[in-house]
């Protein structure tokens, strides 16, 4: 095929600095420079020279800063290698918005194109040509991710999508009735179903009962519906739990009647809040906002895809959770992101086979998160980044989304005869088997298999934005009876769920495809992004079509709600799936799992007083520079946190806009009055390594502390649970998961808090070629959303004015398990912080003081304890603090001054109060451990005996990681 090859070159040439730097880090030091050129490939049988000239001039280049050249080429021409060039293109079928935009822009200019593709050309500048193996290394490790891209050492032909070949109506049938157990297991492995023998046995019984073979689409649909990802079978399983003490004695046995039911939902039922609109039923939890609106909140994980293709994985993670919120008929108003990575300075030779370096993972994930939220126009306002060596092979990407909707606008009532409408993106081969893929361990081979490449996708936030406009307008016009998003499992899961009470018939010929050649089961299971499914009564179809046309959104009527109680899927009239809904949604055989908990082997910890020459100032500077504490400003500022105009407390605050806010406060545009919401989170895997139960207590406590600190009402506070764990079939992994779930119950009931939604991602475990297993540290994220009664009374953490008094709220105990003190110098003790006695009472008292305008600044104490919190408050306010540790309320077991400074006990805040309001503040907190312990000073020093340091030294230490982390910086 003849095509035009167009090269766009920046003028003057720009060095790809960060790529060159990465090349040097992987050891390709002979590379002096890299020059990047954009490539475009366009084709049409009638394309003329003038057409290509016009495209180059009007569409593809900016004459002020770029030069453009082009020439005709033909795909039949042989390609030459070049020793100074690498070209990279996305694989055919992977979303390429730019290529599609080239076609649309050309159309606007009256130029038809049959094909378009894009790529990158990198010119390698080196004194002598790099060796071929070095160039391959450069391409694989720096320039190209072969999961979604391909490269060539030299000029390449375009990656146009080829013509379909073969019979696309092919349906494979499997005679399960005739298989023995071994045969079933072999079939399960061959089709990558991730089903166990009990589950396959249910299918065999079904097949025998029906007296027929099952189709590929049926097997795949059941596998997706029953996957860990969609069905949460571990969280529903009956668990036999055994607990041992330090001496190895069995001290407790218990049968858990489902983690979700016994610990999470039970906590919600125990507190019976009348402002909960929906918990654990819809795609997102929903609570009342005011008389007119409700807010919804959901957090998801997208770990496995982000490990292999960080940008696409994180990108579609955000896109997916935003769709969850659109799926409860809400407008997305905020995105949160909590990211867990391996150490950024990990030596390259310590990288496990088949994994990407943590720096590359972080860069891609951060760009992917920002790309989706920024383009959707949803502010990313809260989050954190956690570093731990356990995340090297399995990074975690938690994405959350908050939505706003008028009361009673979300309907979930499909009718018989309703048409099933799919709108948004077209369906392609992308994302096949994503749900079962995420239910398996990652291995050294994962990135090389074709499973991975179809399970990973690139999102298109602009399509989702258009879909959102259609949905919100359709909601306001009352055009649908039910709505759901298309996520894991694709149409099979979305329609299967939406029609679970009725039954449905879908004709796959009516599903719009990105390209020809998809088999029926692939259409039914595809997880192509940016699709929503509506149940629409026939008389309203035209109105839906008009809306779609107005916003330029593709829509297909693919079937209808039948009332037969069966899921019938046909392809050109031939049945491809014919399953009873009961089998899909009630037929799963409950799993019975074994769990055991043994305390970690004796942790060697020295008492603080036994460590010679501990210098408090030195410790504080080290802790401030610890990546888990240090500023991550570069990452946060790559997200738009201002769009929608409602961000009242921003991620950064203080005199120089660089102090770390405890939580975000939003006042949603379009609401009346000054009511708002606070968003915060709690997470600490270092605690969980010693005691997952205590980790859960601390995560809930931290999330509560954060939102209360900015003005959130502890009596209008809902939380989400997100568990990321290793393989739950291994009893020790499951045992620690049980402990964490028990901690969730204990903390939520202590604070009288409801969980309104949750998510689990298991099998975050790397299996090396030699079979060695490397699980992540069990990681629990608690996300909190609280109502702020009046956003103009919100409080930030920066010290405000010299002469104001500093109070500490809460008791300091001798708790160092998992603390920075323990991580850095192995000192303290192995006691992980537990719940403070004050419970919700102290939070309520503090909230009353905040709404009574008695508080000028408030900052919670977490990693690094009092010293780090005080330092952050001073840095943010550009003011000094003088605090007397002797005045801090402590428990009986605290004896050493450093214990007061660095203990990480829960339930504590530093509060700044104007002297004239001291009496009123003390009265508001009376009955709780609280003490005036210091004051804000003009001096520009942190005086926290024995620490006495100037603020700028603290600031420099706190900023160091950020400077190194910013593109162009080095670690």
């Amino acid at each position, binding site marked *: 095929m003849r095509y035009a090859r167009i090269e766009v070159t920046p003028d003057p040439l720009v060095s790809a600095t960060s790529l060159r730097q990465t090349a040097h880090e992987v050891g390709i030091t002979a590379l002096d420079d890299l020059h990047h050129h954009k490539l475009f490939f366009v084709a049409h049988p009638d394309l003329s020279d003038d057409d290509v000239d016009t495209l180059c001039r009007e569409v593809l280049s900016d004459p002020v800063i770029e030069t453009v050249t082009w020439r005709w080429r033909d795909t039949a021409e042989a390609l030459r290698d070049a020793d100074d060039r690498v070209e990279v293109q996305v694989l055919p079928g992977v979303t390429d918005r730019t290529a599609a*935009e080239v076609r649309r822009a050309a159309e606007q200019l009256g130029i038809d194109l049959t094909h378009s593709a894009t790529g990158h050309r990198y010119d390698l500048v080196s004194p002598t040509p790099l060796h071929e193996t070095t160039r391959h290394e450069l391409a694989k490790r720096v320039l190209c991710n072969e999961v979604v891209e391909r490269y060539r050492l030299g000029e390449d032909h375009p990656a146009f999508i080829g013509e379909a070949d073969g019979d696309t109506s092919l349906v494979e049938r499997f005679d399960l009735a005739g298989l023995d157990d071994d045969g079933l297991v072999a079939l399960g492995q061959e089709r990558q179903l991730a089903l166990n023998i009990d589950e396959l046995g249910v299918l065999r019984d079904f097949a025998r009962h029906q007296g027929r073979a099952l189709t590929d689409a049926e097997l795949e649909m059941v596998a997706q519906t029953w996957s860990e990802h969609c069905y949460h079978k571990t969280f529903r399983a009956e668990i036999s739990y055994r607990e041992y003490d330090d001496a190895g004695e069995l001290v407790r046995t218990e049968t858990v009647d489902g983690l979700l039911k016994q610990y999470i939902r039970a906590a919600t039922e125990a507190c019976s809040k009348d402002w909960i609109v929906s918990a654990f039923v819809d795609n997102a939890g929903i609570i009342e906002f005011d008389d007119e609106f409700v807010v919804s909140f959901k957090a998801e994980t997208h770990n496995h895809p982000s490990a292999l293709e960080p940008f696409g994985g994180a990108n579609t993670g955000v896109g997916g959770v935003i769709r969850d919120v659109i799926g409860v008929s809400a407008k997305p108003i905020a995105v949160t992101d909590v990211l867990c990575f391996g150490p950024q300075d990990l030596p390259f030779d310590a990288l496990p086979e088949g994994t990407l370096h943590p720096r590359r993972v972080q860069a891609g994930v951060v760009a992917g998160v920002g790309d989706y939220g920024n383009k959707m126009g949803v502010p990313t306002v809260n989050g954190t980044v956690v570093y731990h060596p356990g995340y090297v092979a399995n990074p975690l990407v938690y994405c959350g989304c908050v939505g706003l909707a008028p009361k009673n606008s979300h309907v979930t009532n499909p009718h018989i005869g309703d048409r099933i409408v799919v709108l948004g993106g077209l369906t392609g081969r992308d994302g096949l088997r994503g749900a079962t893929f995420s239910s398996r361990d990652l291995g050294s081979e994962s990135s090389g298999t074709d499973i991975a490449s179809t399970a990973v996708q690139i999102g*298109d936030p602009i399509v989702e934005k258009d879909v959102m406009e259609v949905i919100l307008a359709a909601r306001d016009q009352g055009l649908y009876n039910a709505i759901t998003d298309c996520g894991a499992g694709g149409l099979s899961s979305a329609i299967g769920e939406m029609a679970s009470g009725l039954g449905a018939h879908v004709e796959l010929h009516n599903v719009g495809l990105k390209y020809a050649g998809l088999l029926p089961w692939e259409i039914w299971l595809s997880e192509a992004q940016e699709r929503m499914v509506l149940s629409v009564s026939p008389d309203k179809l035209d109105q839906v079509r008009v809306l779609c046309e107005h916003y330029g959104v593709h829509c297909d009527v693919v079937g209808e709600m039948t009332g037969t109680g069966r899921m019938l899927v046909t392809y050109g009239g031939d049945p491809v799936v014919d399953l009873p809904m009961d089998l899909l949604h009630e037929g799963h055989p409950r799993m019975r799992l074994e769990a055991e908990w043994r305390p970690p082997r004796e942790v060697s910890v020295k008492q603080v007083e036994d460590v010679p020459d501990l210098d408090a100032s030195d410790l504080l500077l080290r802790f401030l520079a610890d990546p888990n504490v240090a500023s991550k400003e570069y990452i946060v500022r*790559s997200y738009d*946190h201002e*769009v929608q*105009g409602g961000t*009242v407390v*921003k991620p950064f605050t*203080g005199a120089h806009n660089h102090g770390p806010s405890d939580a975000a406060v939003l006042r949603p545009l379009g609401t009346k009055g000054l009511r708002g919401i606070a968003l915060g989170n709690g997470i600490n895997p270092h605690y969980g390594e010693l005691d997952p139960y205590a980790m859960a207590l601390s995560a809930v406590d931290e999330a509560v502390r954060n939102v209360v600190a900015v003005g959130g009402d502890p009596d209008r506070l809902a939380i989400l649970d997100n568990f990321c764990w290793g393989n739950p079939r291994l009893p020790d992994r499951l045992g620690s998961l049980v402990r964490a779930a028990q901690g969730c119950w204990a903390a939520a009931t202590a604070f009288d808090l409801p969980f309104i939604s949750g998510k689990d991602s298991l099998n975050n475990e790397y299996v090396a070629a030699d079979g060695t297993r490397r699980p992540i540290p069990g990681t629990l994220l608690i996300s909190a959303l609280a109502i702020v009664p009046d956003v103009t009374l919100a409080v930030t953490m920066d010290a405000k004015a010299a002469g104001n008094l500093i109070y500490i709220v809460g008791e300091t105990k001798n708790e160092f398990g998992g603390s920075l003190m323990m991580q850095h110098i192995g000192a303290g003790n192995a006691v992980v912080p537990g719940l403070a006695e004050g419970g919700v009472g102290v939070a309520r008292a503090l909230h009353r003081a905040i709404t009574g305008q008695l508080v000028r600044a408030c900052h919670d104490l977490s990693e690094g304890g009092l010293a780090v919190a005080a330092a952050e408050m001073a840095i943010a306010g550009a003011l000094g603090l003088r605090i007397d540790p002797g005045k801090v309320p402590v428990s009986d077991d605290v004896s050493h001054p450093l214990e007061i400074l660095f203990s990480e006990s829960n339930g504590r805040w530093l509060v700044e109060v104007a002297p004239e309001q001291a009496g009123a503040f003390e009265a508001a907190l009376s009955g709780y451990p609280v003490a005036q312990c210091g004051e804000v000073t003009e001096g520009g020093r942190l005086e926290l005996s024995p620490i006495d340091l100037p603020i700028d030294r603290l600031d420099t230490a706190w900023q160091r990681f950020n400077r190194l982390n910013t593109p162009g910086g080095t670690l």
Partner: protein
Amino acid sequence: MTPRALILHASGINRDHEAAWACERAGARPDIVHISALRNDPRMLGDYQLLVVAGGFSYGDALGAGKRLALELSGSFGDALHSFADEGRPILGICNGFQALIKSGLLPEVQRNLTGGATLTHNAGGHFECRWVTLVPNESSPCVFTRELAEPIDCPIAHGEGRLASTAEIDDRYIALRYADPDRSLNDTKYPANPNGSVQNIAGVCNERGNVLGLMPHPEDHIVPWQHPRWTRGEGGRLGLPLFEAGVRYAAGLGR
């Protein structure tokens, strides 16, 4: 007369609601109008006295920021749009809207100057960034939105392609707003006060007549005091609202 403001919406535009809110608070009657409606009936532009091309990522900015929106603005209803501008009605392009205006020929004096041209491209820092900046109006510019501003504006930027690059010096009268240090000093403004490396610290430019303004920062995100990043420290003022009020006043004075 209450002027009517058309807030242009297109695929990927996402700051339309804030722009509408700002216009409303400034005394106009805003309508968010999707480009498909305008394409079907370009004459509807005649019903409006003020046009705002709001920010976002039109069509994903896949071909360069604002590029395809610019093709549309100069294509299907380019004539209607140019007569809107030629009649002296105010047009405000913010962020992506600015990128589209400059690439569509609605800011001709800046886009094509004597020795070459100007464009908006990738930030000097090489990546998207969101931060608050201070803008100082240029008294010698004829821009109807900024010429009467009494104080600087504090407001956020949120862009990856906001660096104004030019092959020649841009004439002072086309410069409506400049990035400045928070103490409003214009001398030697560096990153992050000039957040993207724009030439001559330019944040916003206007046409010869002063009725078309394009700027990268978002004055529509600083309409009330609690949006300011340091409101809890008692800092305030420097709202973006007066810029909209000036535009609305000017539009009201034009009559129909």
